[in-house]
């Protein structure tokens, strides 16, 4: 049986987008990930996010 790869990001996880702190708000079906803060929201492919500052 094939092992499934663990997802890179989880809902509610804190991520960094070009140094800006955001929280993952949606894992889209097309593979893109939505993350937001009160004043910014980003929809991007997973490679655009970092998990550490």
């Amino acid at each position, binding site marked *: 049986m094939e092992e499934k790869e663990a997802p890179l990001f989880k809902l509610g996880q804190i991520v960094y*987008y070009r140094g800006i702190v955001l929280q993952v708000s949606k894992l889209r079906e097309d593979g893109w990930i939505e993350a*937001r803060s009160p*004043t910014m929201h980003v929809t991007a492919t997973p490679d*655009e996010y970092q998990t550490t500052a």
Partner: protein
Amino acid sequence: MAAVATQILIDGPRNTVAKTSGDFLMSALPTGITILDPALLTSMDPGKAGTFLATTLRIDVIDYSISDGITVQLFWDATTPVLIAELYGRGKLDLKPFGGWQNNAGAGNTGKITFTVILADNSTNTFNGTILLNIWTVKQRLLSLGGA
């Protein structure tokens, strides 16, 4: 390899200004991206107890700069999203003199403004697409959508 970011520049009791910019591969165009969601904006009546969120937004001004070869379709989000406009190239739309573009979506209207990018011309740009939108809106709380 692709990201579209919206920054909320103004989120007051009445006015909202959002700047959306991003780049993406022409082979994987962004679809159904939310620009503004009234449910996530601040209250229209911050002095009052309770939260009076807008239910819809009207668009007063759009500034846009879109790379050639693609068209940005703006939608009022609903069960069946309603096309607001298709933007191509660069320009500024001043819609204020006639009261702005009003949300005319039907069933399942969420008040959100979303966009989708489609290919307009597959011969000009085969690398990256870029967009910049600056959208000024006014918050509304329509009685027909449960506003009080």
